[in-house]
């Protein structure tokens, strides 16, 4: 007997008390929990997102579409960045105000190559106000998962209000499980020393989030 058959047979024997005719959907799951916690205007939702991101030590900037390239250029200069990884589908004008050397996100870029890069600029799939979370799903404006992991400085642009939702349930509705996702809530952190939170371990130690309002 294969281990698969063995384990499945054990499972079925263990569930001898479950009536044979019972279907999974007959086991009641009451979804009476809230779809979102509170009613907010889009502006209030964006404010809450900014507040919660900052609470977990992301650096939050707010701007509008026309001023975005200048802001990104300023942030890269402030870091003394010399190179920036660029996902293939990043809107061209986002980096139009900087002449920092661009490293395209390609399949042959090794982890060591990425370790030598200063910064990365991406868009996002959705952002969650109640938890201060940005979700990346490896779409063309976000690139492969590793480009937002190895460099020490990540600039993530969120379109407001289009990409902002209130809650976790609302975010999942928008996401495609087939795409690899990275949910980011502040820069990397640890609670492993005396259960006290310290920011900055293996992921980018500086996370700058730009909330950009469409003109």
């Amino acid at each position, binding site marked *: 007997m294969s*281990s698969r058959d*063995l*384990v*499945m047979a054990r499972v079925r024997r263990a*569930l001898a008390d479950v009536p044979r005719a019972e279907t999974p959907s007959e086991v009641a799951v*009451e979804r009476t929990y809230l779809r979102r916690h509170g009613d907010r205007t889009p502006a209030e939702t964006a404010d809450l997102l900014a507040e919660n991101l900052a609470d977990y030590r992301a650096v939050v900037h707010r701007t509008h579409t026309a001023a975005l390239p200048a802001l990104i250029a300023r942030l890269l200069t402030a870091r003394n960045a010399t190179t920036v990884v660029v996902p293939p589908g990043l809107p061209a004008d986002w980096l139009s105000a900087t002449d920092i050397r661009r490293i395209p996100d390609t399949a042959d870029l090794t*982890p060591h190559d990425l370790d030598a890069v200063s910064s990365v600029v991406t868009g996002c799939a959705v952002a969650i106000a109640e938890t201060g979370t940005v979700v990346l799903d490896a779409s063309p404006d976000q690139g492969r998962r590793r480009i937002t992991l190895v460099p020490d400085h990540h600039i993530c642009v969120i379109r407001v209000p289009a990409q902002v939702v209130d809650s976790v349930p609302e975010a999942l509705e928008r996401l495609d499980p087939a795409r690899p996702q990275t949910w980011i809530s502040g820069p*990397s*952190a640890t609670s492993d020393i*005396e259960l006290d939170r310290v920011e900055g371990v293996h992921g980018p130690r500086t996370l700058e989030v730009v909330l950009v309002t469409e003109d």
Partner: protein
Amino acid sequence: MSGPGHATYLGMPAFPKAADTSTRDTQLRANLRHATHTIRAKRATAVAELDDWGKLRAAGAAIKDRTLRHLDHYLEQLERSVTAAGGQVHWAADADEANRIVTELVRATGEREVVKVKSMATQEIGLNHALAAAGITAYETDLAELIVQLGDDLPSHILVPAIHRNRAEIRDIFAAKMARWGRPAPDNLTDAPADLAEAARLHLREKFLNAKVGVSGANFMVAETGTLVVVESEGNGRMCLTLPETLISVVGIEKVVPTFQDLEVFLQLLPRSSTAERMNPYTSTWTGTTDDDGPRTFHLVLLDNGRTDTLADTVGRQALRCIRCSACLNVCPVYERAGGHAYGSAYPGPIGAILTPQLRGTQSELDASLPYASSLCGACYEVCPVAIDIPEVLVHLRERVVEGGPVSVRGTRTVIKPAKGHAAERAAMRAARWALDHPGVLRTGQRLASRTRRFHPRRLPGPGRAWSDTRELPTVPAESFRDWWQRTRATNDRSTP
């Protein structure tokens, strides 16, 4: 390279003995008290932010119950989904088989080193030890697991395996041991948490960048889509899940949830219960493999190792709802004082006291002692995000230990004998039942006890000695209640018409 020796839980003493030692360790008690009290207050605040916590908790429990009652259905669905998405599914009936599968998979890559994300399942099966025996070095990359590994120590907490270490001890371990495993700790390393985190970052970076094989567990597996979820803080998880060419995930069969939508419940319950955050810094989800992004090969090893035996117990199976948040450890007065090592398994605290004796059975002295490692205060049940009635299961398992009875052992129904060491307790209970059934005997006994009360010892002799080690014997009154009633009331009652 030669790693340090590998500590295991084998041959550890029963809980009372281990706790007797650990409770005398004032440094350990101070470390645990500080850490658990810090997180307790934070958790309460994080939970209070959500008005619908009770409903989320009920939904979490219900989703897990639905899954467990139809686990065969969901496992088959999961296998199909993962396979369709490009993953390869393996089944392991026990720890040895899981270790064998992982060892073979690593060997097949030609690599001798793997990077690991913190995982309870691989801790439970002793994977690092098995890999070492095959000449493969597993590098733990979670900060607390790194502290444990460098210190040749055992984890003592589900979320923070090095909770028993304070910052000064961690500094000393890093300074002394990092060089043996790779990049040494920086000179003049201080015990500031930020400096310690930086030292770990530098030490592990080369390992991540060179890693060809990653080993992980998973917090959730979605049957419908084949999606796996890892919830973490440091980014070491992302490193292990995305940089290597091969990813091997070892996951207990109870970690499956039916739908992607179900994550909306657990991704709210888990972070707030665990690290007391609105959301943990990083959550990764992956469905099989993705072209040119992340590992090219993905293996999922589904682990039984006593889970089906736990499932067979209709009272005890609720322990399989556990999402490993560790909230029950942080509120437990017994855990706070005894520490995690006294529980003798990868799963310490209240959840360990009900999970370990079910996964491993109650035949060893240690495992039979675990259901007693509780004051039954119920704080664990109150904070559990999936409403596991831990006190109920503890009492149920105590009955099993004392009385024996039908259980499932490696999938076979069998009847176990009462555990040794409870014969005196059973004899006392039988005598009490007989006396309570015979009023004349009870009366005579009570009078005898009252008359001899000046000669009663402070401590019980013989098998009762252990019981009175930590308890005062009750004082026998000069007169029993029945005699007092007869003397003061009986005559009056009869004279009243």
